[in-house]
């Protein structure tokens, strides 16, 4: 098949060699974390492979994602303290969606990619915001564009598309390029939004608690006196 045939065949075709179908269960990892993961979570680590020469990818059980990523974050030999990205991939053709966690260990200078496959009729996974607070907006983006729900997320709502967007989740393979509504309807809906809905001062104040520290010493004592 040439590249043009693949285009004509539609999304997801020509990927028979992808990990989703026929990858070998295990290849020798270049990253010691993969071996350690297999020891600790034997049944939850489905397979691993190496991408682009030296990037280790581990496919794990979505049910145990918070255990696995929490362990990778906490364990002294792993210390993946930086969550570089959370994203998702839709290969189309009814294949499961993959949620991708791109990890980086600052102390060990090691990268690891963890993937979870979610079936199309069960697009939900536990949130990792409890492990990395920075996952908050990344998971919102994945929810917005792929429709994957993150259980336990503190604020799961759209982040890129408008709040009143009703056409679905744009990066899914079954989403038409120009959207589901006519251009006239899209224009009308767009102008019904209030731009200030996205920048509500009260909401910002509510989400970022204003902590007023009372200093020690003379100034603190004076301030304390004023409080009474």
């Amino acid at each position, binding site marked *: 098949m040439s590249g043009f045939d693949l285009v004509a065949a539609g999304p997801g075709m020509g990927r028979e060699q992808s990990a989703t179908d026929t990858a070998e269960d295990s290849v020798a990892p270049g990253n010691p974390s993969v071996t350690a993961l297999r020891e600790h979570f034997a049944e939850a680590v489905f397979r691993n492979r190496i991408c682009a020469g030296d990037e280790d990818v581990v496919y794990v059980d979505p049910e145990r994602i918070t255990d696995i990523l929490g362990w990778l974050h906490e364990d002294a030999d792993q210390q993946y303290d930086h969550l570089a990205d959370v994203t998702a991939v839709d290969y189309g053709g009814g294949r499961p969606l993959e949620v991708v966690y791109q990890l980086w260990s600052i102390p060990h200078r090691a990268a690891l990619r963890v993937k979870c496959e979610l079936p199309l009729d069960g697009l939900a996974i536990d949130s990792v915001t409890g492990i990395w607070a920075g996952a908050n907006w990344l998971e919102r983006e994945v929810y917005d564009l792929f429709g994957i729900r993150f259980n336990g997320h503190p604020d799961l709502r759209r982040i*890129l*598309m*408008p709040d009143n967007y009703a*056409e679905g989740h*744009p990066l899914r393979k079954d*989403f*038409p*390029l*120009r*959207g*589901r509504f*006519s*251009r*006239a*309807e*899209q*224009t*009308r*809906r*767009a*102008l*019904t*939004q*209030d*731009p200030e809905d996205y920048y509500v001062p009260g909401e910002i104040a509510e989400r970022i608690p204003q902590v007023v520290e009372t200093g020690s010493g003379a100034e603190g004592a004076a301030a304390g006196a004023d409080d009474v």
Partner: protein
Amino acid sequence: MGLDKPGVLGSGTPAFLTTRLDFVVNWARRNSLWPMPFGTACCAIEMMASAASNYDLARFGMERMSFSPRQADVLICAGRVPYKLAPVLRRIWDQMMQPKWCISMGACASSGGVFDVYSMVQGIDTIVPVDVYIPGCPPRPEGLIYGLMMVQEKIRGESLANHAALRAEDPLAAGRPRADDEEVSDLTGPFGNSTHQNRVSGLVETDAIGRAEDRLP
């Protein structure tokens, strides 16, 4: 009579000029066009280059970029506008004082450009009325300056006699799309409203707009 004072054309000439009111009003308006920059993409880089010293828009009366819409005369929409930004663009246009003009700079602002996708406004003329479209991806500063000079030409032809008709605005239209549904469908057919502009130009034969199945996904 003022003949004893130094005159406008030198000593001994009159210290006053007579002119048509239309001319002097238009002269003042077209030589003090303060732009409201609405730069969202790479076109804004060219717009900044136009305002910088090498091209120096100030020579033509665009003395400064007015970052407050209330003190601006011409809205320069430079770059692609997603639907989420459409109400912002409309509100800025509503906030500008009359008389006001609008320039759609670049392919994306004029027709959606290559972004014929779910998230992108297919030409800002569906949102606000546009006076001058500048083609290019992005246009060079010369293009922007030429577009602004076309606005100046347009002002030259205006008259206070038809000012009310030219500048009439429906207060109920604030915050609403400029084009009705039929016109939006027409403007945003396949390949954006560049196809529409080709058709109305009469210079290019195309039946692409007529294929209704292309309009919807």
